[in-house]
């Protein structure tokens, strides 16, 4: 068994995560999530692969011919469905967020903001809010 598919899968997941961590645009972020997901495709297909065997369709092969693992392929198919659902849902949310906030930048769109302010530096007012709530 070659290590290459695993290395590729790990690299894809890592680079996708890096993309999500540094993204300043939601569409780009959804793409990075897709890259992360490709890591699972590569991993699963790599795990199920057998050298020198056919696709698991026995229509024109005698039963018993070595074939790659069909379970893994079923898992990948399900994974693709999940991926399509997630991408669609995230893009819908992104469009709605853009309609309301007028921005695709995650840093301008936060669930909790002090007094409705936006931007990079809500630090001081957020903290004073917190301290006030302790009092």
């Amino acid at each position: 068994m070659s290590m290459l598919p695993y290395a590729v899968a790990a690299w894809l997941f890592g680079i996708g995560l890096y993309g999500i961590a540094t993204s300043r645009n939601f569409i780009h972020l959804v793409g990075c999530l897709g890259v992360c997901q490709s890591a699972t495709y590569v991993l699963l297909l790599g795990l199920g692969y057998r050298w020198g065997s056919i696709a698991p369709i026995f229509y024109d092969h005698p039963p018993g011919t070595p074939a790659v693992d069909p379970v893994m392929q079923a898992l990948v198919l399900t994974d693709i469905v999940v991926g399509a659902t997630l991408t669609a849902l995230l893009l819908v949310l992104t469009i709605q967020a853009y309609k309301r906030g007028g921005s695709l930048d995650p840093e301008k769109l936060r669930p909790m903001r002090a007094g409705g302010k936006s931007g990079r530096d809500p630090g001081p007012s957020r903290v004073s809010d917190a301290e006030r709530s302790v009092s």
Partner: protein
Amino acid sequence: MTAFPAALLPLPVAIPLVVCAAMLATAHLLPGRLPDILATLTALSVAILCAVIAARAADSPLVYWFGGWEPRDGVHLGIGFSVDEASGWIAAFIGLLYALTFLFAWGFFDRTHGHFHILMLLFLAAMVGFCFTRDMFNLFVWFEVMSVAAFALTAYHLEESALAGAINFTVINSLAGFLMLGGIGLIYAQTGTLDFEGIAAAVARGGRDPVVAGAFCLAATALMIKGAIVPFQFWLADAHSVAPSPVSVIFSGSMVSLGLFGLAKVSAVVFAGSDQVQRTLPVLLIGMGSFTALLGGWMALLQRHLKRMLAFSTISHAGIMLTGIGALSAGGTGGMLIYVVGHGLVKGALFMIAGILLATRASIDEIALRGLGRGLGPAGIAMALAGLLLCGLPIGVLDQGTRLVQGALTQQGHGFAVAAGAIGAALTGAAVLRASGRIFLGLGPDPGDEAGAPSQDEREKANRPLWLMLAPCCVLLALDAGLPASLIEHGIPRAASAFMHRPAVGAFAEGPAWLPWASVAAALVGAGYGLFRKRLPAAVVRPVSVTQSAPTRALELLHSGLIGDYAAWLAVGVAAIAAVLTLV
């Protein structure tokens, strides 16, 4: 042909799915309140069916193989449901929570065409399937169905903050799904099966194996992300505080704890044979759980947005549940299962009260609500009672779970985890009691004109009768306080042993009797300090505010609401878990 009780197993999943498909097809035709009625009845019937199944599963677990694909000669090809007593009762509890939530949400949405109910029923079916399944990949499928329904429900209001919270929630939980799928692929490659029992047997044969450890690392991380364990907890506070109140009830009451339920099942059943995993679990789970309990409690105390406060309290309690799993004994896991139910009842009631305040007083900000709750006496009493139960008032289901978890941890000498759990519970109780004192009694200093709560103004529909919203909340609290203790005490040793696939044991150890009272006292002191700080002498106040301000500032900065930061913390968490697995 499957015998009678086992043939019931697919029904609690199939019924909500069929009803929600039928409702979706006829959505535009359904008159007025029919979706409410249908959804409530469906959830109730799921609860009753699950209770029947659980009662039947008391002697031995019920097993159902879809399409009759039973394992032959040790080869598992089919997908099965396997229900032990504990899983059945957890599913019954979830059904009941949904039924009460549907009552609470009666008329909550004006022109929904039942879409809210459809998503909720899908969510319910996924949760029951998650409890029942005995197949790794099937577990993943329910995990994803649960996630997708939850994502859509979070963003239901389509407001700016709701959308931001939903996006954070979606991205982090999708990553959890990918990690889980990777873990499942690895374990399948190593063992050649996806069935829990089949994997367990193969893992036990295999000895020390880095692939099995890697698979566990990925699957456990995914379930801990769902269970909001530090450092994966960030999404929860965002999602819970912006979701509609009825949805928050379900999130906190069952979804989060279900992640940990899955972790308990996977680590006790699937990876029971791996020495490496079993040696790592106590260190990992008790360490992360204690830290989560403390951090969640502290963050809860810092919040003025009521739902966000409750969200952090859920994080804290999830940490306590995790320490229960980490004890790796039937007592700890049994305590955790009881805790899941008790916590769900109390936290569900609290989110309902937050929803009542949001609907009738049009605010969710503790400071702005000061004294405004005076006309809502029963809600105030319910909130104070829930706060006391949360910090450990020794009555009811939650307390029983707490004592079992503490007992199991004490027995194994994890004094630190016991202390962390008690302090975490006390902190969350203090936060809730402070809020109820301020809102319903008008205690604490007058804020004057202060900035609004740190989120955009929220509104929920106000024209629902108060009693309709209050009744399910009171039922939840009454259930928590009133379920006969002897019944649980009698049943839990058997149920927990069956859940962990271990030989039955006698009674479980309980924690020290004074500890709950200490928690309650600490919570009252904390709430009192929060409310009357201005009247205390400076010698008391100054040291506290000096020592807490720097770490508080750091914590607030950490919870930035930025998805990038959350993803980075996720990577850190995965690396930490992998490191612990390699080193121990």
